[in-house]
């Protein structure tokens, strides 16, 4: 998936000392402004939130939030996953998402979901490759952008999947 594989892709966690990198990425990548709660959740999610470095340049990030459902199970909500424009198609996004999915498997988390704007076909196709499915459509989810609707993509992870 993409060339330039001889360049190192490494992952690093997000701490209060480097959270500005995450902010910079979000400012450039997303039309939505995220508030302090977002960053607090990201920092609290531990290993699930990561920055990806391509040849020691920070180009991508995945930020997650751990949520408790009724019944006590934990599920993962992907708040953002985005890569800088020049570095797309190099397999970095795949790497990040696989990292999170692996973690879910190890920690027996069975559900992982996210919101995607209805017109974002690229993103929808990307996630479908990993086994995500559209489970819901929410009208007027976004307040400032157009179209305001979004899909909920969910992936259910069962341990039997790992044995396949």
């Amino acid at each position, binding site marked *: 998936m993409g060339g330039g594989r001889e*360049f190192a892709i490494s992952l690093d966690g997000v701490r209060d000392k480097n959270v*500005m990198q995450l902010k*910079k*990425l979000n400012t450039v990548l997303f039309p939505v402004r995220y508030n302090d709660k977002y960053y607090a959740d990201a920092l609290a999610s531990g290993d699930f939130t990561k920055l990806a470095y391509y040849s*020691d*340049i920070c*180009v991508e990030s995945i930020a997650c939030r751990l949520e408790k459902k009724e019944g006590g199970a934990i599920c993962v909500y992907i708040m953002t996953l985005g890569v800088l424009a*020049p570095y797309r198609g*190099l397999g970095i996004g795949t790497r990040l998402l696989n990292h999170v999915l692996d973690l879910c498997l190890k920690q027996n988390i069975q559900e992982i979901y996210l919101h995607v704007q209805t017109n974002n076909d690229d993103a929808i196709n990307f996630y479908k490759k990993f086994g995500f499915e559209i489970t819901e459509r929410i009208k007027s989810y976004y307040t400032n952008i157009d179209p305001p609707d979004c899909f909920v993509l969910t992936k259910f992870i069962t341990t039997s999947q790992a044995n396949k």
Partner: protein
Amino acid sequence: MGASLPPKEANLFKLIVKSYETKQYKKGLKAADAILKKFPEHGETLSMKGLTLNCMDRKSEAYELVRLGLKNDLKSHVCWHVYGLLYRSDREYREAIKCYRNALRIDPDNIEILRDLSLLQAQMRDLTGFVETRQQLLTLKPNHRMNWIGFAVAHHLNSNGAKAVEILEAYEGTLEDDYPPDNERCEHGEMLLYKISLLEECGFLERALEELHKKEPKIVDKLTYKEQEVSLLVKLGRLEEGANLYKALLTMNPDNYRYYEGLQKCFVLYSENGKYSSDEIDQLDALYKSLAEQYTWSSAVKRIPLDFLQGDKFREAAISYIKPLLTKGVPSLFSDLSPLYDHPGKADMLEQLILELEHSIRINGRYPDRTEKEPPSTLLWILFFLAQHYDRRGQYDVALSKIDEAIQHTPTVIDLYSVKSRILKHAGDLVAAASLADEARCMDLADRYINSECVKRMLQADQVALAEKTAVLFTKDGDQHNNLHDMQCMWYELASGESYFRQGDLGRALKKFLAVEKHYADITEDQFDFHSYCLRKMTLRAYVEMLKFQDRLHSHAYFHKAAAGAIRCYLKFYDSPVNSPAEEEDNTSKTPSQKKKMKKQRKAERAKKEAEEKNEESSASGNSKFGKRHIKPVDPDPYGEKLLKTEDPLSEATKYLKLLQKNSPDSLETHLLSFEVNMRKQKILLAFQAVKQLLRLDAENRIHIAACI
């Protein structure tokens, strides 16, 4: 020792001495008081008590007691010795030497005193005295290894290297064949290397080489052995052997620029100023190509040819050097190539080159003659390089546009913001530079280097309070003034001083500059412990190097800046004393009684302010330092007002001027300042001398000269 004391008191006296040596000061005091109860006029006890008090920070009492003791017992060498120790602890070395000499007059064979005296003489560079003392020590105790070595070093420092070698040979003669034992091999090896380097210095090159080969099994430091050998071979003109040895050294470390230099010297292809004839260039090119085949992983072997190649060859070599580094993403590429910008014509060639690469990457995504695609980061690093390039050539708009494009491309790279900040600073917008440096800092709060850069920019933009707050983020305990001062963080103090000076706050500026000056005084002091340590550990070559370094200490750039800054403060202060309350002699527009009243008023104001501050500070320090043994001295003059109160600013200025003139005689600034100061002191002849020096250094810079006259 104790002059005619009965046995009980004599024991107590011994106890005092032992307590002093083991730092049990209270015990020593008690013993001293016990003796003094019976013998209140006993000189030596009084002296020892004074010495103990000195170590407990009761200096004035200490001095009194010691002087009293001395008065009571002038003929006691102990009293003089103690007096000398007292002076030494206060860094009054000349006085201390005098006291020690007196003590020696009374007891000429006292090893303790001789040893202490020799240390002081080394410190004060009293070289003839040092030699004498060392000789005496040797005569008294010839079985003590240190005395031989010390005597040899003394002669070496006194520029008598040949004598030093003789002594070392004599010393070696006293050793047995199976010396040294295993735990002393390093030290013995060091001594041998020292002897050989002495021989080299004196010019006995053949002998040095012989010695080196003979003693090879005993020398432990093999790398230095090789380096010493190759230096001797080259000096003796045995160039082929030297070349082979350099190649062996290069195999060990192919990135050592000195080895390449040496190799060039062996092929008689070395030129100090970097200028070569075209024949020589061809030869060098061939040499480096062959070396590059051997040492493929070395970066030096590829970088050095860029310095001497010209024209098309340079272009070729530059392209092949730069391309892989751009792909890899080396941020320091520009700094690496920066010296080339001083060579005529190369800057243009580099510009052309890089612009071609940029064009090619933008259109095709690959280098002009390659087929594989470049990673997206290459464009980023090209833009980064170009921004620095245009910055260096003074085209700030283009530079800014390039760096802005780079930031848009990949906004997460911190180096981009640092470079943009630097471009803005060069373009003159210091405030914007500071705020950009702050943005860079926020992106990695754990990086102290970025923090320091940000502090520097803030100080350049005269945002002193903000700079202090930012610097504090990385200091221990958040007590920034003391911590940065203790760590001898001179760049910070200089930058603050210059900022205060620009804002006209002369007192504080002067304080900062003098703080830097004090660091240099401390560095000079610090060498004291090494005189005995190095002799014991046999690190003789390093010791001699250190002494040479200390001799040149005040020519260091930071000292120069600090002294120049201090002199400027004093000059400004002399020129416009109306702002300060103290200098009223020049103020002729007021009548004497008015002046007196104003003086009193301001003194009262100031006293009140100082008392307030003292209260504040002592209560603050009381709270925070509760439980600590040592109370940090409260800074009695935080705004530098007392410094501004000096009666004669010009004499203070002259103090620093003399140091500058002695140590930085090749700097234009030194002589400019000398001119300024001497004109004000009406010493026209000295001022004229300064102008002459300026002419000598830079005959073209007539603007300066004209301004002076």
